Protein backbone atom coordinates (compact mmCIF):
# COMPACT_ATOMS: atom_id res chain seq x y z
CA UNK A 1 0.00 0.00 0.00
CA UNK A 2 1.30 3.46 -0.95
CA UNK A 3 1.21 5.88 1.91
CA UNK A 4 0.07 9.37 0.87
CA UNK A 5 2.54 11.94 2.18
CA UNK A 6 1.48 14.81 4.37
CA UNK A 7 2.65 18.19 3.18
CA UNK A 8 3.25 20.66 5.95
CA UNK A 9 2.97 24.42 6.32
CA UNK A 10 5.93 26.77 6.01
CA UNK A 11 6.15 29.17 8.95
CA UNK A 12 9.20 30.97 10.29
CA UNK A 13 11.50 28.83 8.17
CA UNK A 14 10.13 25.64 9.71
CA UNK A 15 7.79 23.03 8.39
CA UNK A 16 5.18 22.64 11.10
CA UNK A 17 1.98 20.67 10.90
CA UNK A 18 -1.07 22.72 11.58
CA UNK A 19 -1.59 23.07 15.29
CA UNK A 20 -5.22 22.17 14.67
CA UNK A 21 -4.35 18.70 13.51
CA UNK A 22 -6.65 19.08 10.52
CA UNK A 23 -5.82 18.12 7.02
CA UNK A 24 -7.43 17.87 3.62
CA UNK A 25 -6.65 15.61 0.75
CA UNK A 26 -5.46 16.73 -2.65
CA UNK A 27 -6.31 14.26 -5.33
CA UNK A 28 -4.55 13.35 -8.46
CA UNK A 29 -6.13 15.31 -11.28
CA UNK A 30 -9.40 13.85 -12.51
CA UNK A 31 -9.20 10.94 -10.10
CA UNK A 32 -10.23 10.24 -6.57
CA UNK A 33 -6.76 9.05 -5.67
CA UNK A 34 -5.12 10.96 -2.92
CA UNK A 35 -1.99 12.72 -4.10
CA UNK A 36 -1.16 14.03 -0.69
CA UNK A 37 -2.70 15.30 2.50
CA UNK A 38 -2.29 19.00 3.17
CA UNK A 39 -2.54 20.87 6.42
CA UNK A 40 -5.67 22.91 6.87
CA UNK A 41 -4.21 25.94 8.57
CA UNK A 42 -6.12 27.42 11.48
CA UNK A 43 -6.37 31.00 12.69
CA UNK A 44 -3.69 30.14 15.18
CA UNK A 45 -1.35 28.99 12.41
CA UNK A 46 -2.04 32.27 10.70
CA UNK A 47 -1.27 34.10 13.90
CA UNK A 48 2.03 32.24 14.20
CA UNK A 49 2.87 33.03 10.61
CA UNK A 50 2.20 36.72 11.15
CA UNK A 51 4.38 36.70 14.27
CA UNK A 52 7.17 35.09 12.29
CA UNK A 53 6.76 37.62 9.50
CA UNK A 54 6.80 40.48 11.97
CA UNK A 55 9.93 39.18 13.65
CA UNK A 56 11.66 38.89 10.30
CA UNK A 57 10.93 42.48 9.24
CA UNK A 58 13.89 44.23 10.81
CA UNK A 59 16.49 41.80 9.59
CA UNK A 60 15.12 41.53 6.08
CA UNK A 61 14.43 45.22 5.59
CA UNK A 62 17.83 45.98 7.10
CA UNK A 63 19.70 43.99 4.49
CA UNK A 64 21.18 45.86 1.61
CA UNK A 65 19.07 45.95 -1.50
CA UNK A 66 21.89 44.17 -3.32
CA UNK A 67 21.74 41.37 -0.80
CA UNK A 68 17.98 41.00 -1.16
CA UNK A 69 18.45 40.97 -4.88
CA UNK A 70 20.94 38.13 -4.64
CA UNK A 71 18.68 36.10 -2.42
CA UNK A 72 15.79 36.49 -4.84
CA UNK A 73 18.05 35.36 -7.63
CA UNK A 74 19.09 32.41 -5.50
CA UNK A 75 15.40 31.55 -5.13
CA UNK A 76 15.11 31.48 -8.90
CA UNK A 77 18.14 29.20 -9.09
CA UNK A 78 16.74 26.85 -6.49
CA UNK A 79 13.46 26.77 -8.35
CA UNK A 80 15.31 25.71 -11.42
CA UNK A 81 16.93 23.00 -9.30
CA UNK A 82 13.55 21.75 -8.20
CA UNK A 83 12.01 22.00 -11.62
CA UNK A 84 11.19 18.30 -11.66
CA UNK A 85 9.24 18.46 -8.41
CA UNK A 86 7.25 21.49 -9.55
CA UNK A 87 6.46 19.86 -12.88
CA UNK A 88 5.42 16.69 -11.12
CA UNK A 89 2.99 18.50 -8.81
CA UNK A 90 1.56 20.60 -11.60
CA UNK A 91 1.00 17.62 -13.83
CA UNK A 92 -0.39 15.37 -11.16
CA UNK A 93 -2.60 17.70 -9.20
CA UNK A 94 -3.61 20.24 -11.83
CA UNK A 95 -3.46 18.07 -14.92
CA UNK A 96 -0.91 20.22 -16.77
CA UNK A 97 0.74 18.74 -19.79
CA UNK A 98 4.48 18.49 -19.38
CA UNK A 99 5.07 21.36 -21.76
CA UNK A 100 2.68 23.67 -19.88
CA UNK A 101 4.15 22.67 -16.56
CA UNK A 102 7.66 23.42 -17.81
CA UNK A 103 6.46 26.75 -19.12
CA UNK A 104 4.80 27.48 -15.84
CA UNK A 105 8.04 26.85 -13.95
CA UNK A 106 9.84 29.09 -16.43
CA UNK A 107 7.38 31.85 -15.64
CA UNK A 108 7.84 31.39 -11.92
CA UNK A 109 11.59 31.65 -12.34
CA UNK A 110 11.26 34.68 -14.60
CA UNK A 111 9.07 36.46 -12.05
CA UNK A 112 11.64 35.92 -9.32
CA UNK A 113 14.50 37.05 -11.55
CA UNK A 114 12.52 40.15 -12.54
CA UNK A 115 12.00 41.26 -8.94
CA UNK A 116 15.52 40.21 -8.01
CA UNK A 117 16.62 42.80 -10.52
CA UNK A 118 14.23 45.43 -9.16
CA UNK A 119 15.34 45.15 -5.53
CA UNK A 120 18.03 47.77 -5.96
CA UNK A 121 16.39 49.90 -8.63
CA UNK A 122 12.83 50.86 -7.73
CA UNK A 123 14.21 53.29 -5.13
CA UNK A 124 15.96 55.20 -7.86
CA UNK A 125 12.96 55.10 -10.13
CA UNK A 126 10.50 56.24 -7.49
CA UNK A 127 12.66 58.17 -5.03
CA UNK A 128 13.28 61.87 -5.38
CA UNK A 129 15.21 64.82 -4.16
CA UNK A 130 12.66 67.53 -3.58
CA UNK A 131 13.66 71.06 -4.58
CA UNK A 132 12.07 72.77 -1.59
CA UNK A 133 12.08 76.56 -1.36
CA UNK A 134 14.51 76.91 1.51
CA UNK A 135 17.84 75.84 2.93
CA UNK A 136 16.83 72.21 3.36
CA UNK A 137 17.71 68.93 1.80
CA UNK A 138 14.47 67.03 1.32
CA UNK A 139 14.45 63.59 -0.19
CA UNK A 140 11.87 60.90 -0.60
CA UNK A 141 12.67 57.24 -0.44
CA UNK A 142 10.58 54.14 -0.89
CA UNK A 143 10.31 51.91 2.15
CA UNK A 144 8.62 48.58 2.82
CA UNK A 145 5.08 48.80 4.15
CA UNK A 146 5.69 45.97 6.66
CA UNK A 147 3.94 42.64 6.98
CA UNK A 148 1.92 41.84 3.88
CA UNK A 149 -0.92 39.38 3.86
CA UNK A 150 -1.72 37.71 0.56
CA UNK A 151 -4.84 35.78 -0.18
CA UNK A 152 -4.32 34.12 -3.51
CA UNK A 153 -7.77 33.36 -4.83
CA UNK A 154 -7.32 33.07 -8.57
CA UNK A 155 -6.93 30.06 -10.76
CA UNK A 156 -3.49 28.68 -10.06
CA UNK A 157 -0.74 30.51 -11.93
CA UNK A 158 2.82 29.84 -10.81
CA UNK A 159 4.24 32.85 -12.66
CA UNK A 160 1.77 35.20 -10.97
CA UNK A 161 2.18 33.58 -7.57
CA UNK A 162 5.96 33.97 -7.75
CA UNK A 163 5.49 37.55 -8.91
CA UNK A 164 3.36 38.20 -5.83
CA UNK A 165 6.03 36.76 -3.56
CA UNK A 166 8.90 38.48 -5.34
CA UNK A 167 7.21 41.87 -5.52
CA UNK A 168 6.34 41.81 -1.83
CA UNK A 169 9.71 40.77 -0.46
CA UNK A 170 12.12 42.47 -2.85
CA UNK A 171 11.52 45.83 -1.12
CA UNK A 172 11.99 44.41 2.39
CA UNK A 173 8.44 43.43 3.30
CA UNK A 174 7.68 40.05 4.77
CA UNK A 175 4.80 37.89 3.64
CA UNK A 176 2.12 35.60 4.92
CA UNK A 177 0.38 33.94 2.01
CA UNK A 178 -2.57 31.68 1.73
CA UNK A 179 -1.89 29.38 -1.21
CA UNK A 180 -4.41 29.11 -4.01
CA UNK A 181 -6.64 26.20 -3.15
CA UNK A 182 -6.38 24.48 -6.50
CA UNK A 183 -2.62 24.35 -6.49
CA UNK A 184 -2.15 23.94 -2.77
CA UNK A 185 0.27 21.07 -3.19
CA UNK A 186 2.80 23.40 -4.84
CA UNK A 187 3.53 24.52 -1.30
CA UNK A 188 5.83 21.51 -1.00
CA UNK A 189 8.47 22.37 -3.62
CA UNK A 190 7.95 26.09 -3.08
CA UNK A 191 8.69 25.84 0.62
CA UNK A 192 11.78 23.80 -0.20
CA UNK A 193 12.94 26.59 -2.50
CA UNK A 194 12.36 29.22 0.18
CA UNK A 195 14.06 27.14 2.84
CA UNK A 196 17.21 26.65 0.82
CA UNK A 197 17.75 30.08 -0.74
CA UNK A 198 19.43 31.92 2.16
CA UNK A 199 16.10 33.65 2.70
CA UNK A 200 15.94 34.51 6.40
CA UNK A 201 13.37 32.66 8.45
CA UNK A 202 9.93 34.19 8.47
CA UNK A 203 10.33 36.42 5.42
CA UNK A 204 7.90 34.27 3.50
CA UNK A 205 5.35 32.13 5.27
CA UNK A 206 3.03 29.85 3.34
CA UNK A 207 -0.26 28.44 4.49
CA UNK A 208 -2.69 26.03 2.91
CA UNK A 209 -6.28 25.80 3.92
CA UNK A 210 -9.70 27.28 3.53
CA UNK A 211 -10.08 30.77 2.14
CA UNK A 212 -13.51 31.14 3.68
CA UNK A 213 -12.24 30.15 7.08
CA UNK A 214 -9.19 32.42 7.04
CA UNK A 215 -9.84 35.54 5.02
CA UNK A 216 -11.52 37.43 7.83
CA UNK A 217 -8.62 36.62 10.12
CA UNK A 218 -6.31 38.14 7.55
CA UNK A 219 -8.60 41.13 7.30
CA UNK A 220 -8.74 41.84 11.01
CA UNK A 221 -5.19 40.97 12.07
CA UNK A 222 -3.69 44.23 13.32
CA UNK A 223 -0.08 43.22 12.65
CA UNK A 224 -0.76 42.87 8.96
CA UNK A 225 -0.05 46.26 7.41
CA UNK A 226 -1.04 45.60 3.87
CA UNK A 227 -3.50 43.11 2.53
CA UNK A 228 -3.39 41.87 -0.99
CA UNK A 229 -6.44 40.09 -2.31
CA UNK A 230 -5.49 38.49 -5.56
CA UNK A 231 -8.96 37.32 -6.38
CA UNK A 232 -12.24 38.37 -7.89
CA UNK A 233 -14.89 37.57 -5.33
CA UNK A 234 -16.73 40.84 -4.76
CA UNK A 235 -18.02 39.93 -1.35
CA UNK A 236 -14.65 38.88 -0.04
CA UNK A 237 -13.05 41.96 -1.51
CA UNK A 238 -15.65 44.16 0.10
CA UNK A 239 -15.48 42.37 3.45
CA UNK A 240 -11.72 42.68 3.48
CA UNK A 241 -11.91 46.39 2.80
CA UNK A 242 -14.23 46.85 5.73
CA UNK A 243 -12.06 44.73 8.00
CA UNK A 244 -8.95 46.58 6.85
CA UNK A 245 -10.26 49.75 8.50
CA UNK A 246 -9.47 48.28 11.90
CA UNK A 247 -5.85 49.31 11.59
CA UNK A 248 -6.06 51.26 8.33
CA UNK A 249 -4.49 48.40 6.41
CA UNK A 250 -3.58 49.20 2.89
CA UNK A 251 -5.98 47.06 0.90
CA UNK A 252 -4.70 46.07 -2.49
CA UNK A 253 -7.12 44.50 -4.88
CA UNK A 254 -6.76 42.17 -7.78
CA UNK A 255 -4.25 43.19 -10.39
CA UNK A 256 -3.15 41.58 -13.61
CA UNK A 257 0.27 42.27 -15.10
CA UNK A 258 2.01 41.37 -11.90
CA UNK A 259 5.48 41.37 -13.41
CA UNK A 260 5.73 45.14 -13.29
CA UNK A 261 6.89 48.11 -11.30
CA UNK A 262 3.30 48.94 -10.35
CA UNK A 263 2.98 45.53 -8.72
CA UNK A 264 5.96 46.32 -6.51
CA UNK A 265 4.72 49.82 -5.72
CA UNK A 266 1.61 48.34 -4.12
CA UNK A 267 3.75 47.35 -1.17
CA UNK A 268 5.82 50.39 -0.44
CA UNK A 269 5.50 53.57 1.55
CA UNK A 270 7.17 56.84 0.72
CA UNK A 271 9.23 58.44 3.43
CA UNK A 272 10.32 62.04 3.11
CA UNK A 273 13.30 63.23 5.15
CA UNK A 274 14.24 66.84 5.69
CA UNK A 275 17.52 68.23 6.92
CA UNK A 276 18.83 71.77 7.03
CA UNK A 277 21.76 72.75 4.86
CA UNK A 278 24.15 74.94 6.78
CA UNK A 279 27.62 75.30 8.19
Amino acid at each position, binding site marked *: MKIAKTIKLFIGGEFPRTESGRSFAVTVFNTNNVYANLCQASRKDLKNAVSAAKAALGGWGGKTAYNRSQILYRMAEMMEGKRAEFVDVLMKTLGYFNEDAQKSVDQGIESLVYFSGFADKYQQVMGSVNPVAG*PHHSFTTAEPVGVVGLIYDLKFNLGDLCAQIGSVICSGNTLVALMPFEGSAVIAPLSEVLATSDLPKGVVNLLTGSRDELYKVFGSHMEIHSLKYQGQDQKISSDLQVLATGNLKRFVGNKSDSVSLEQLLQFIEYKTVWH*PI*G*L
Partner: protein
Amino acid sequence: MIDQVGIHERAEFFAKRSIKKQSKLGALYTCVSMCDLTTLEGSDTVGKVQQLCQKAIRPAPPTMLSQYFNGNKIEPLPSVAAVCVYPTMVPVAVKALKGTDIKIASVATAFPSGQAPFEIKSQDTKFAINHGANEIDMVINRGAFLSGKYSVVFDEIKEISKICAGKAHLKVILETGEIGSYDKIRLASEIAMEAGADFIKTSTGKMQPAATVPVTLVMLQAISDFYDKTGKKIGMKPAGGIRSAKEAIQYLVMVNETLGEQWLSSELFRFGASSLLNDLLRQIFKEISGSYYYEKSFSLD
Protein backbone atom coordinates in the same frame (compact mmCIF):
# COMPACT_ATOMS: atom_id res chain seq x y z
CA MET B 1 26.62 72.98 18.75
CA ILE B 2 24.71 75.46 16.65
CA ASP B 3 22.53 74.69 13.67
CA GLN B 4 22.94 77.51 11.22
CA VAL B 5 19.54 77.24 9.57
CA GLY B 6 17.87 77.05 12.97
CA ILE B 7 19.64 80.09 14.31
CA HIS B 8 18.75 82.05 11.18
CA GLU B 9 15.11 81.08 11.51
CA ARG B 10 15.11 82.24 15.10
CA ALA B 11 16.74 85.51 14.10
CA GLU B 12 14.05 86.08 11.50
CA PHE B 13 11.43 85.39 14.13
CA PHE B 14 12.61 88.42 16.11
CA ALA B 15 12.57 90.56 12.98
CA LYS B 16 8.86 89.82 12.68
CA ARG B 17 7.98 91.32 16.02
CA SER B 18 6.05 94.46 15.30
CA ILE B 19 7.04 97.14 17.78
CA LYS B 20 4.79 100.14 17.64
CA LYS B 21 3.81 103.32 19.45
CA GLN B 22 4.78 103.51 23.12
CA SER B 23 6.80 100.32 23.01
CA LYS B 24 8.70 101.68 20.06
CA LEU B 25 9.40 105.03 21.62
CA GLY B 26 10.57 103.46 24.84
CA ALA B 27 12.78 101.09 22.90
CA LEU B 28 14.28 103.92 20.87
CA TYR B 29 15.12 105.88 24.02
CA THR B 30 16.64 102.78 25.52
CA CYS B 31 18.70 102.18 22.41
CA VAL B 32 20.14 105.68 22.62
CA SER B 33 21.17 105.03 26.18
CA MET B 34 22.90 101.83 25.11
CA CYS B 35 25.08 103.34 22.42
CA ASP B 36 28.84 103.24 22.69
CA LEU B 37 29.52 106.19 20.46
CA THR B 38 32.68 105.28 18.70
CA THR B 39 35.51 106.81 16.75
CA LEU B 40 38.42 104.55 15.95
CA GLU B 41 40.23 106.09 13.06
CA GLY B 42 43.86 106.78 12.31
CA SER B 43 42.70 110.31 11.71
CA ASP B 44 41.20 110.81 15.17
CA THR B 45 42.23 114.13 16.70
CA VAL B 46 41.54 115.96 19.92
CA GLY B 47 38.95 118.07 18.15
CA LYS B 48 37.15 115.09 16.70
CA VAL B 49 36.97 113.30 20.04
CA GLN B 50 35.78 116.44 21.85
CA GLN B 51 32.96 116.89 19.41
CA LEU B 52 32.01 113.25 19.72
CA CYS B 53 31.84 113.63 23.47
CA GLN B 54 29.54 116.61 23.13
CA LYS B 55 27.21 114.54 21.04
CA ALA B 56 27.43 111.71 23.54
CA ILE B 57 26.21 114.00 26.28
CA ARG B 58 23.47 115.68 24.28
CA PRO B 59 22.63 113.69 21.17
CA ALA B 60 20.26 116.46 20.00
CA PRO B 61 19.49 119.94 21.24
CA PRO B 62 16.91 119.63 24.07
CA THR B 63 14.82 122.40 22.54
CA MET B 64 14.12 120.21 19.55
CA LEU B 65 12.10 117.91 21.75
CA SER B 66 10.48 120.41 24.03
CA GLN B 67 8.76 122.22 21.17
CA TYR B 68 6.32 119.35 20.95
CA PHE B 69 5.14 119.52 24.52
CA ASN B 70 3.57 122.88 24.94
CA GLY B 71 5.83 123.80 27.74
CA ASN B 72 5.28 120.65 29.74
CA LYS B 73 8.36 119.21 31.32
CA ILE B 74 9.47 116.21 29.35
CA GLU B 75 11.94 113.46 29.80
CA PRO B 76 15.01 114.64 27.97
CA LEU B 77 16.87 112.45 25.55
CA PRO B 78 19.32 110.30 27.42
CA SER B 79 23.02 110.54 26.89
CA VAL B 80 24.70 107.57 25.39
CA ALA B 81 26.33 104.89 27.51
CA ALA B 82 29.92 105.45 26.58
CA VAL B 83 32.33 106.85 24.09
CA CYS B 84 34.80 104.43 22.67
CA VAL B 85 38.20 105.66 21.55
CA TYR B 86 41.82 104.63 21.13
CA PRO B 87 44.01 104.70 24.28
CA THR B 88 45.77 107.90 23.26
CA MET B 89 42.44 109.69 23.13
CA VAL B 90 41.32 108.58 26.58
CA PRO B 91 42.63 111.73 28.31
CA VAL B 92 40.71 113.88 25.85
CA ALA B 93 37.49 112.00 26.53
CA VAL B 94 38.03 112.09 30.28
CA LYS B 95 38.23 115.83 30.15
CA ALA B 96 35.29 116.29 27.80
CA LEU B 97 33.00 114.00 29.75
CA LYS B 98 33.83 115.26 33.20
CA GLY B 99 30.79 115.50 35.42
CA THR B 100 28.71 113.08 33.37
CA ASP B 101 28.09 109.40 33.98
CA ILE B 102 29.13 108.52 30.45
CA LYS B 103 31.71 105.79 30.48
CA ILE B 104 35.01 106.00 28.71
CA ALA B 105 35.74 102.89 26.78
CA SER B 106 39.09 102.32 25.21
CA VAL B 107 40.02 99.66 22.75
CA ALA B 108 43.23 97.94 23.73
CA THR B 109 45.45 94.89 23.17
CA ALA B 110 46.72 95.99 19.78
CA PHE B 111 43.30 96.73 18.35
CA PRO B 112 42.06 95.70 15.82
CA SER B 113 44.33 92.80 14.81
CA GLY B 114 45.64 91.76 18.22
CA GLN B 115 48.84 90.80 16.48
CA ALA B 116 51.34 92.13 18.98
CA PRO B 117 53.42 90.56 21.73
CA PHE B 118 51.42 90.12 24.89
CA GLU B 119 53.67 92.52 26.73
CA ILE B 120 52.53 95.29 24.41
CA LYS B 121 48.87 94.30 24.78
CA SER B 122 49.31 94.50 28.50
CA GLN B 123 50.97 97.90 28.28
CA ASP B 124 48.24 99.13 25.96
CA THR B 125 45.62 98.16 28.52
CA LYS B 126 47.44 99.66 31.45
CA PHE B 127 47.95 102.91 29.60
CA ALA B 128 44.24 103.26 28.92
CA ILE B 129 43.25 102.44 32.49
CA ASN B 130 45.86 104.70 33.98
CA HIS B 131 44.52 107.57 31.94
CA GLY B 132 40.98 107.09 33.09
CA ALA B 133 39.33 104.51 30.87
CA ASN B 134 36.69 102.64 32.81
CA GLU B 135 35.93 100.14 30.11
CA ILE B 136 38.43 98.15 28.06
CA ASP B 137 37.45 96.67 24.71
CA MET B 138 40.09 94.05 24.03
CA VAL B 139 40.43 91.84 20.97
CA ILE B 140 41.04 88.13 21.26
CA ASN B 141 44.05 86.52 19.68
CA ARG B 142 42.39 85.16 16.52
CA GLY B 143 45.64 83.75 15.22
CA ALA B 144 45.87 81.56 18.29
CA PHE B 145 42.14 80.79 18.24
CA LEU B 146 42.06 79.67 14.62
CA SER B 147 45.10 77.47 15.09
CA GLY B 148 43.41 75.74 17.98
CA LYS B 149 45.53 77.24 20.75
CA TYR B 150 42.53 77.98 22.91
CA SER B 151 44.56 78.10 26.10
CA VAL B 152 46.60 80.98 24.69
CA VAL B 153 43.40 82.86 23.97
CA PHE B 154 42.08 82.08 27.44
CA ASP B 155 45.31 83.06 29.20
CA GLU B 156 45.57 86.40 27.43
CA ILE B 157 42.00 87.33 28.37
CA LYS B 158 42.61 86.18 31.91
CA GLU B 159 45.73 88.36 32.20
CA ILE B 160 43.98 91.41 30.81
CA SER B 161 41.04 90.83 33.11
CA LYS B 162 43.44 90.86 36.05
CA ILE B 163 44.75 94.22 34.92
CA CYS B 164 41.18 95.51 34.66
CA ALA B 165 39.99 94.06 37.92
CA GLY B 166 38.36 96.69 40.09
CA LYS B 167 39.26 99.50 37.71
CA ALA B 168 37.57 98.85 34.41
CA HIS B 169 34.95 96.63 32.86
CA LEU B 170 36.37 94.25 30.32
CA LYS B 171 34.67 93.77 26.97
CA VAL B 172 36.13 90.99 24.89
CA ILE B 173 35.89 91.37 21.12
CA LEU B 174 35.65 88.04 19.31
CA GLU B 175 35.79 89.49 15.78
CA THR B 176 33.16 86.99 14.75
CA GLY B 177 33.60 87.77 11.07
CA GLU B 178 37.00 86.14 11.23
CA ILE B 179 36.32 83.03 13.22
CA GLY B 180 34.32 81.14 10.69
CA SER B 181 31.29 79.43 12.13
CA TYR B 182 28.61 79.73 14.76
CA ASP B 183 30.10 76.79 16.60
CA LYS B 184 33.39 78.64 16.88
CA ILE B 185 31.65 81.86 17.90
CA ARG B 186 29.96 79.96 20.67
CA LEU B 187 33.29 78.46 21.73
CA ALA B 188 35.02 81.83 21.73
CA SER B 189 32.17 83.30 23.79
CA GLU B 190 32.58 80.58 26.38
CA ILE B 191 36.35 81.03 26.54
CA ALA B 192 35.94 84.77 27.01
CA MET B 193 33.34 84.45 29.76
CA GLU B 194 35.27 81.76 31.59
CA ALA B 195 38.41 83.89 31.40
CA GLY B 196 36.73 86.85 33.07
CA ALA B 197 35.03 89.02 30.47
CA ASP B 198 32.33 91.37 31.76
CA PHE B 199 30.99 91.83 28.25
CA ILE B 200 31.41 89.91 25.07
CA LYS B 201 31.44 91.89 21.88
CA THR B 202 31.05 90.77 18.29
CA SER B 203 33.41 92.87 16.25
CA THR B 204 36.01 95.55 15.89
CA GLY B 205 33.94 97.29 13.26
CA LYS B 206 36.99 97.18 11.04
CA MET B 207 35.79 94.37 8.85
CA GLN B 208 32.65 92.86 7.38
CA PRO B 209 30.67 90.94 8.35
CA ALA B 210 30.48 92.59 11.72
CA ALA B 211 27.52 92.25 14.09
CA THR B 212 24.58 90.32 12.71
CA VAL B 213 21.41 89.25 14.44
CA PRO B 214 22.18 85.52 14.37
CA VAL B 215 25.76 86.02 15.55
CA THR B 216 24.48 88.09 18.43
CA LEU B 217 21.85 85.48 19.19
CA VAL B 218 24.50 82.76 19.43
CA MET B 219 26.38 84.92 21.91
CA LEU B 220 23.24 85.77 23.89
CA GLN B 221 22.48 82.08 24.25
CA ALA B 222 26.03 81.49 25.46
CA ILE B 223 25.49 84.26 28.02
CA SER B 224 22.20 82.71 29.08
CA ASP B 225 23.80 79.32 29.62
CA PHE B 226 26.74 80.87 31.45
CA TYR B 227 24.33 82.70 33.72
CA ASP B 228 22.39 79.51 34.43
CA LYS B 229 25.62 77.75 35.26
CA THR B 230 27.41 80.42 37.31
CA GLY B 231 24.84 83.06 38.25
CA LYS B 232 27.05 85.69 36.61
CA LYS B 233 25.47 88.19 34.27
CA ILE B 234 27.68 88.90 31.29
CA GLY B 235 26.92 91.84 29.04
CA MET B 236 26.60 91.81 25.28
CA LYS B 237 27.78 94.31 22.72
CA PRO B 238 27.06 93.87 19.04
CA ALA B 239 29.31 96.27 17.16
CA GLY B 240 29.64 97.35 13.60
CA GLY B 241 27.03 97.15 10.88
CA ILE B 242 23.98 98.18 12.89
CA ARG B 243 22.82 101.32 11.19
CA SER B 244 19.06 101.54 11.50
CA ALA B 245 16.77 102.03 14.45
CA LYS B 246 14.63 99.20 13.14
CA GLU B 247 17.53 96.79 13.42
CA ALA B 248 18.43 98.10 16.84
CA ILE B 249 14.89 97.41 18.06
CA GLN B 250 15.14 93.92 16.66
CA TYR B 251 18.24 93.41 18.81
CA LEU B 252 16.34 94.66 21.82
CA VAL B 253 13.50 92.25 21.12
CA MET B 254 16.01 89.46 20.86
CA VAL B 255 17.67 90.36 24.16
CA ASN B 256 14.27 90.64 25.79
CA GLU B 257 13.16 87.21 24.62
CA THR B 258 16.49 85.44 25.08
CA LEU B 259 17.89 86.86 28.30
CA GLY B 260 14.96 88.81 29.65
CA GLU B 261 14.32 92.33 30.77
CA GLN B 262 17.19 92.28 33.24
CA TRP B 263 19.55 92.65 30.33
CA LEU B 264 17.71 95.63 28.86
CA SER B 265 20.03 98.15 30.42
CA SER B 266 23.27 99.78 29.39
CA GLU B 267 24.85 97.87 32.26
CA LEU B 268 24.43 94.70 30.26
CA PHE B 269 23.76 95.64 26.69
CA ARG B 270 25.46 98.07 24.34
CA PHE B 271 25.48 98.95 20.71
CA GLY B 272 28.89 99.65 19.26
CA ALA B 273 27.95 102.02 16.51
CA SER B 274 28.46 105.46 15.16
CA SER B 275 25.82 106.02 12.51
CA LEU B 276 23.05 104.27 14.47
CA LEU B 277 22.54 107.15 16.87
CA ASN B 278 21.30 109.55 14.22
CA ASP B 279 18.76 107.10 12.92
CA LEU B 280 17.54 106.51 16.46
CA LEU B 281 17.10 110.26 16.84
CA ARG B 282 15.28 110.52 13.53
CA GLN B 283 12.87 107.80 14.55
CA ILE B 284 12.31 109.29 18.00
CA PHE B 285 11.41 112.63 16.51
CA LYS B 286 9.22 110.97 13.96
CA GLU B 287 7.34 109.09 16.66
CA ILE B 288 6.85 112.24 18.67
CA SER B 289 6.09 114.70 15.89
CA GLY B 290 4.46 112.41 13.39
CA SER B 291 6.63 113.62 10.53
CA TYR B 292 9.74 112.21 9.02
CA TYR B 293 12.96 114.00 9.80
CA TYR B 294 15.74 114.41 7.35
CA GLU B 295 19.35 113.57 7.99
CA LYS B 296 20.44 117.14 8.32
CA SER B 297 18.35 117.54 11.44
CA PHE B 298 21.06 115.89 13.47
CA SER B 299 24.74 116.58 13.66
CA LEU B 300 27.29 114.51 11.83
CA ASP B 301 29.48 113.96 14.87
